[in-house]
């Protein structure tokens, strides 16, 4: 199982090869190296997971120490990888979905001049994310945490000539930094309390060392980091803007992997969270609130990627709801299925945009199911999965979360979850109906592709094959549920299992949530297929509410007015006052001194040395006074 070091090793090798020799490899070679690196990482991940399965469930925890990073006397931090069922699932998701997206990117980015740079960043991201999930201590976790943030920044502003892209990258960086600040403080607090950063030691002694107050402080600080990274209220604003990056990047980083790092981190540190009931409640409430809130925004967006972005925020809320009520396995299960169907839909959206020369407005699409059959079918699988229609994967994982919430006694949170499920079904159906059904509304202009075809066409096989694989996973991934729960069981053995509900109640819950989903789809069908209800009329009728939702509750504007503008103004005042008057003044004064000194250079020079010596002498007197008098 020492081979686990190859999981981050291969992508790192990929980065080095692509960055250093990409010039000689050419496009084909670069693509081969980059995809091969991640593919090999996935193969190794499969191998070590298989090896893990061979061992008895109680001892499925391997720590591979690579080297000692920082060591002084009694304090030591190793760069060590921790392989247990939780990290095994995570590396499988990261490298597996990552590999498919790499392959897809070869087609999607084929014409881009920054091909090599793109794959270097993408490999670097996979490396960083693997480090994050495999880290055996908090310091390495932090390093991975910062590295994925850096990659996210680089990839969002990949097309940095576009002003919005550069701005979006900056926004993501700054917003997540706020969370990271809390995260770093949390780690400091852990170090101050435990004098170690090793997972095993911290978790092992947590129940004896921590008081409830201290545990609450630590976990809330850690959760602040998760809120930033996983785009929850109130730090979610960066994720929709992050859609300025290339679409495969949105699929990989801003849907399937990096944004779920917060969920992973809370799950990993669940030992600490369970010592702090208040923190657990905060996690669950923030999760449920975000799920509902982001879903409402998604109902009124027209940008194909932004709908998906808000949907991602909403689904991440579900995951936090799950871990907040102690259903960690359910949270990771939903994380996995979400990685499948959301990556699928992002890639599908990318495929649509590819065909329509970059068009992103769903009002200008329609009828694509005839021209892009494969994309449509796979997208439909994702749609049914996220809407929670059995037997698609999203149904199982979402149902598991809702049942857990109900069983834990948080009826209100459960209700929010069910309503959100209905809204989710509605906005996804709206998107599907507007994009793939109905009459084509794209003008001839947007449809003309580089190859001068008059109609939109299906994407090349290198893009559709990953779509097909993801579609199968999105459709059937739900049946992995029991296996996954069984596999993850030992990790959460210490925490109490959820009280199982009577079968009748369980069935009632399932029927309720499926009914909510069905209702959502039906309303969308009424509005966008049958045209029985005119959505515009409904929007007008709703008035203020619609405007609020349409404009994302004006949160960006509020942040801008309350936070960004004052800081900016203060900075510019400082810049003019200090920089121009102060520093420039000093510089100018120095310049004029130099000029006036021109004539009597020698005299000024001795003058300088004399004053230097005087200051020196003052120092000597100071030293002598302190050293003898004390």
């Amino acid at each position, binding site marked *: 199982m020492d081979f686990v070091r190859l999981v981050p090793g291969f992508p790192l090798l990929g980065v080095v090869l692509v960055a250093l020799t990409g010039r000689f490899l050419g496009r084909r070679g670069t693509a081969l190296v980059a995809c091969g690196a991640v593919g090999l990482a996935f193969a190794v991940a499969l191998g070590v997971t298989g090896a893990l399965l061979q061992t008895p469930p109680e001892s499925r925890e391997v720590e591979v120490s690579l080297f000692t990073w920082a060591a002084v006397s009694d304090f030591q931090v190793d760069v060590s990888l921790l392989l247990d069922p939780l990290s095994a699932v995570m590396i499988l998701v990261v490298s597996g979905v990552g590999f498919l997206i790499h392959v897809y990117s070869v087609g999607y980015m084929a014409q881009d001049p920054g091909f090599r740079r793109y794959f270097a960043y993408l490999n670097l991201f996979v490396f960083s994310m693997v480090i994050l999930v495999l880290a055996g201590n908090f310091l390495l976790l932090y390093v991975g945490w910062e590295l994925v943030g850096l990659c996210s920044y680089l990839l969002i502003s990949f097309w940095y000539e576009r002003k919005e892209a550069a701005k979006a990258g900056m926004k993501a960086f700054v917003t997540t930094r706020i969370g990271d600040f809390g995260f770093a403080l949390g780690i400091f607090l852990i170090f101050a309390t435990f004098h170690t950063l090793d997972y095993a030691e911290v978790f092992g002694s947590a129940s004896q060392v921590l008081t409830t107050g201290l545990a609450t402080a630590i976990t809330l600080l850690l959760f602040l980091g998760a809120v930033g990274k996983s785009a929850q209220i109130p730090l979610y604003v960066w994720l929709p803007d992050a859609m300025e990056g290339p679409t495969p990047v949105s699929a990989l980083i801003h849907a399937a992997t990096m944004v779920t790092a917060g969920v992973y981190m809370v799950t990993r540190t669940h030992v600490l969270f369970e010592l702090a009931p208040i923190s657990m409640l905060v996690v669950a409430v923030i999760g449920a609130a975000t799920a509902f809130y982001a879903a409402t925004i998604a109902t009124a967006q027209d940008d194909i990627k932004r709908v998906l972005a808000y949907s991602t925020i909403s689904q991440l809320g579900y995951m936090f709801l799950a871990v907040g009520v102690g259903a960690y396995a359910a949270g990771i299960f939903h994380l996995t299925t979400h990685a499948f169907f959301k990556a699928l839909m992002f890639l599908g959206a990318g495929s649509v945009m590819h065909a329509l020369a970059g068009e992103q407005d769903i009002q200008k699409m329609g009828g694509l199911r005839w021209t892009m059959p494969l994309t449509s079918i796979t997208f439909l699988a994702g749609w049914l999965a996220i809407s929670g229609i059995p037997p698609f994967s999203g149904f199982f994982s979402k149902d598991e979360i809702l049942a857990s919430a109900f069983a834990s006694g948080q009826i209100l949170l459960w209700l929010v979850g069910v309503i959100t499920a209905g809204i989710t079904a509605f906005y996804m159906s709206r998107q599907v109906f507007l994009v793939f059904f109905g009459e084509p509304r794209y003008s001839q202009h947007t449809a003309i592709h580089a190859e001068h075809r008059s109609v939109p066409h299906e994407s090349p096989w290198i893009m559709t094959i990953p779509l097909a694989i993801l579609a199968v996973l999105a459709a059937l991934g739900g049946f992995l549920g029991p296996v996954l729960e069984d596999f993850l069981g030992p990790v959460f053995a210490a925490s109490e299992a959820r009280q199982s509900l009577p079968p009748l109640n369980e069935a009632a819950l399932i029927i309720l949530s499926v009914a909510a989903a069905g209702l959502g789809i039906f309303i969308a069908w009424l509005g966008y297929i049958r045209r029985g209800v005119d959505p515009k009329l409904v929007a007008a009728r709703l008035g203020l509410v619609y405007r609020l939702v349409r404009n994302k509750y004006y949160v960006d504007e509020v942040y801008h007015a309350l936070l960004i503008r004052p800081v900016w103004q203060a900075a510019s005042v400082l810049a003019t006052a200090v920089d121009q008057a102060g520093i420039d003044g000093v510089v100018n004064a120095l310049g004029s001194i130099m000029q006036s000194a021109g004539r009597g250079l020698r005299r000024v020079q001795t003058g300088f040395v004399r004053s230097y010596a005087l200051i020196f002498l003052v*120092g000597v007197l100071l030293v002598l006074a302190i050293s003898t008098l004390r």
Partner: protein
Amino acid sequence: MPTTQELIAISPEIILALWALSVMFLDLLIAQSRKSILAYWSLLGLLLAGGAEFSLWGREEILFQGAFVQDNLSLFLDLVLLLATGLSLLMAKGYIKDLEMEHGEYYTLTLFATLGGMLMAGAGDLLIVFLGLEVLSLSLYVLSGFRRTEPMAQEASLKYFLLGAFASGFLLYGIALVFGSTGTTLLGGIAVAITEGGLLGDPLLLLGLGLLGVGLSFKVALVPFHMWTPDVYEGAPTPVAGYMSVVAKAAGFAAALRIFLSAFLQLAGDWTLLLSLLALLTMSGGNIIALAQSNMKRLLAYSSIAHAGYILLGVIALNSWGLSSVLFYLAAYGFMNLGAFAVIVALRDGEREYLALNDYAGLGSRHPLLALSMAIFMLSLAGVPPTAGFLAKFYIFGAAVQAGYGWLAILAVLNSVLAAFYYLRVIVIMYMREPAGQVAKMTHSPALALAIFLAVIGTVQLGLFPAAVVELAQASLFPFLGS
């Protein structure tokens, strides 16, 4: 009469001395057009001396009745000195040729200066400290004025000389007072005399110690003994400035460690307040003034002052963690600071140097590799993980916290936040600003590229895999403090 064993134990110093002389005589035989042979010859000498150091590791020799000590501490510091010298010679080779000052004396003096530093690192007697200091200083006075047709260089050299002589006077006076009080200049003897003679509160001794401190503070440029630093760095040839910033500092701290550890350990309580004050003044003074600099060399001069303040924290902590972190910091600082100077050396168009900060605009797109190296050095100087500078700061501050100087560590962290501002500004200028007028040109040279490459490797290596060097540093201090 020295025994063979003693001669073997001091062989690195002997090799270096002979090598410096040989460079001087070779210079007489070599035509002006082929002077660069001397650079390779000098590097060979450094390699030999370094090899001798390695073979002596773990020997713990006390030589010449205690006047000189060749233990792991001196070997570690010697290796840092030799490495820094090697890097600066690689930088200098093309530079002094382009600026028409390619004289053999450059190499001779550099080697002699390093020899002086090595004497300080292994000194077992205050007079050897003084001897080493003078050998180092006299060479540096000449080197800093090496471009003798330039008024700036003349000014730098003269200023450095005057103030250096001033400081040497204080150091010598301190030695005299200590001798007057204890009756010996041997470091070990002083410690014995303090215990046996009950000299703990002796004002003469404290006065002497204070003056010794002044002399060394000048060498490592602590505020308020720092005034010469920016002027001299600016006037001196750039490789010399880089060399001084590392070698003089390392040698000064080496002597300070020797003196305080071997002779005055019992007086530890008496100097912490003073040193804390000096550290605080030095960090804050260096960083604040550095903020307003627009010249790269002056910026690095003030930055080097600030770093001396950080290093002082480790001396104050005075536990095994703190002192080994001083050694680690010196090694890390050697790589990152010389690297930064090497980039400055590279950024010139034959004779014209680009020293203004604004000249770095657009470097990111024009010379991506050079800009990347500079970015690494700046990040490391700022203390961003996972570079050498981060771990060095981490160790030093951690040691201060462990020794109960939490307040000092907090002030130091605040200082490094402040410092990050001007280091990152260099990166911002390189990557995010378009050049206003003429684009800075770069001079290619294999030796210089090797220097930058080695510095990058060192900076990254010490940041990612510091364990080996930390272990060496800890082993160096074992005889003084136990584990």
